[in-house]
């Protein structure tokens, strides 16, 4: 994916590396050096994606496609008797 034209990337690769290093430390994810390199590339791509998605004008007043049921059922999937939907 190409970054959105309005997207300005982190001022340097080093900035992106710093941010990703911090995020991995915060999350306690034990990445190795070459893995960090790949995540830095992914981070820069994701920032481009983010800008692209926030640039969609029609989404300004749109609700998210999220689902919430205030009165859910809690049937276990492995209980045969609960397979009562058909």
């Amino acid at each position: 994916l190409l970054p959105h034209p309005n997207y300005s990337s982190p001022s340097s690769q080093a900035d992106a590396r710093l941010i990703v290093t911090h995020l991995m430390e915060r999350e306690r994810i034990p990445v190795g050096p070459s893995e960090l390199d790949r995540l830095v590339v992914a981070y820069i791509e994701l920032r481009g994606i983010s800008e692209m998605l926030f640039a969609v004008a029609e989404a300004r007043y749109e609700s998210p496609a999220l689902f919430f049921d205030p009165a859910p059922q809690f049937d276990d999937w492995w209980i045969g008797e609960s397979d009562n939907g058909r």
Partner: protein
Amino acid sequence: VLAVLAVPQSISEAGAQLRQGKTSSVALTRAFLSRAETLDPLLGTFVTRLDETAMAQAERADADFSQGIDKGPLQGIPLGVKDIIADSDGPTTAQSLILDRLWAADKDAPVVRRLKRAGAVIVGKTTTMEFAHGAPDGTKPFPLPRNPWDVSRYPGGSSSGTANGIAAGLFLGGLGTDTGGSIRGPSALCGITGLKPTFGRVPKTGCVPLGFSLDHVGPLARSAEDCGLILNVIAGYHPSDPQCSKREWGQLPPLSHADIGGLRIGVDRVHPEGIQSGDSAEAFGLALDVLAALGAELVEVELPLYQEMVSIVAVTRFAEAYAYHRGDLQSRWTDYGATTRVNLSRGALISSSEYVQAQRVRRVVQRKLVEVFGRVDIMASPTTGAIAEPYLSFDDEFTLSPEGGQFSNMGYWSPSGFPVMALPMGLAEDMPVSLQLASSPFSELTLLKAGHAFQQATQWHRLWPPVAELN
């Protein structure tokens, strides 16, 4: 190769033989298990073979037949189930060292229970990518799935073993899952038919999650008709899945005289980039000619927000998968495959507002697609731009970028939740290429009819890969 194998080619053909007394489920199952004995080591189809329980299920199916009990078209039919879907007859591994083997021990996912109630014979748990998300990984103790058309090539993922097993004649159909193309991709690259149903049409509980709002369980088989027979059994509300639809599925009518005269088929000749020049381009043109000759009306359509929609798959899948895996990534990093763990960690790079924004844009695109399907009944495209890649050049860095053409046509439809089918439309360099048909929510029947009509007019779904003749 239009070869005649010793086993039936389709579920409907096998069903007819069973009901005419020309074969029994035990004989059928034994024949397929014998083929697996020869071909599984070459193809990496199974994580776990279930020979013993399969034979017991086959005996039960025959006993039912002999007592006049007919549970429908899947009775006595050998099927494979992707190894992220729970089956009480064997372990569920998700092709990973990580998954707690007790998670689904002795339990059937609702879809598996429905197959068993319909009298199906489950011959094994089939290979996938780790958690349906990693890449082929030779360093872990799991089989490496291969493409039956050329065993040096990738069969597609992540429903790899279900697809390559059907293509090579190790069973007649099966279950896969599709989050960003995992039913359609391997179906396309192995030359079979696969259907991602409408989101919520089929319960996905009892299946290891990847992207909670993107995961679909669906059928793979050689033909659209066979996919319909499996969908007919697994579709329908189940109270354990909060995202499962209560909409009635009804019963699948016979497809034998599917008429697509007047069907409006949309074609986007702009997206994705390279669609006019990929390996599939020539066959796609011919497939459109076939559909037009069958009476369909071709309509030029430009799909809305194409690049944005493809990006939503990445943001949504990474965020949702990371929530599921974070604890294990922290504590069991090296137990994951090298590609899987980096892929999954991308979820930590996405902010909560970016995830929500992706869901807002997702709804914008859904709104626009409703308009599109006011003008057409089906959208057609090649499923993948490229034929299966050789393993030697397989890039184990499974990047975000879909520009390789292999995933981009599929990814667009994943966040929509709309039903999409992949079916063979020819060969390029002796490898399968595939037609993708998408329709509006809960219009699986429209897809099945169109797919069936196309397959009646072509022979592509009847081709066997050369390796299938080894047994």
